[in-house]
């Protein structure tokens, strides 16, 4: 046990793509967990009737709420694609440093592109959320 590597001292340890993406996975997980409250709000409103649903929709029309939803969308796609990256690691694949960096950049790109696609679609559809 004595010659095992010790944990890095986070305050003085230079951030790297891999370590930053690791803590981001955890932060997006926490953010997404809180986001389920929005999901519950929407579902409960739909179950309560047309009037309540209309009131809920007006909340979603607020710009600040939209911004949070955009952040939530990115967090979702990040956690999803980085989660798949983690599952590959769990299967013992892609653990070497070049592949870990390549998959890291791929996760960042995919999460941003999918977020842009989703919100591009939301604002493009007729009678959309804009």
């Amino acid at each position, binding site marked *: 046990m004595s010659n095992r590597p010790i944990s890095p001292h986070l305050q003085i340890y230079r951030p790297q793509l891999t370590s930053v993406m690791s803590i981001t996975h955890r932060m997006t997980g926490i953010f*997404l967990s809180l986001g389920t409250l929005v999901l519950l709000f929407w579902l409960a409103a739909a179950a309560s009737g*047309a009037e309540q649903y209309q009131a809920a929709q007006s909340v979603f029309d607020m710009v600040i709420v939209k911004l949070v939803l955009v952040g939530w969308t990115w967090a979702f796609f990040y956690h999803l694609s980085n989660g798949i990256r983690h599952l590959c690691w*769990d299967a013992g694949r892609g653990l070497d440093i070049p592949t870990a960096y390549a998959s890291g950049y791929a996760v960042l790109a995919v999460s941003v592109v999918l977020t842009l696609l*989703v919100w591009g679609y939301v604002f493009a559809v007729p009678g959309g959320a804009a």
Partner: protein
Amino acid sequence: MSLRSDLGRVKGLGSAKEGVHHWRLQRITAIALVPLSLWFVVSLLCVFNGTHAEVVEWVAAPYVTVLLVALTVLLFWHLQLGLQVVIEDYVHTAFKQIALQIALRVAAGFGALVAIVSILKISLALG
């Protein structure tokens, strides 16, 4: 270099029977959530701008009801497993640890119930 065998080193350091239980459940729920959550986001994009009647009609379709309840169970299960580890890592007071772990399970269970009741209320009303 140690002359002890691998078995000798790990013996007595804990049960080897359920050590991977949490890890395995976290992965299983994660794998199941990949298609389910993607389906949900795509569906949401299709129904979100609809009227209340359209949204309710979508929820009440039998396969949608089933998938939504499955998504709810897996989502709240997965978030409970994840937040459990976050609390384990950052909370170092025994009392706070126990209180937060219980609160997390109550909140996750309650959240799942609210979602499932809402889904079934819509579905059964139109069924």
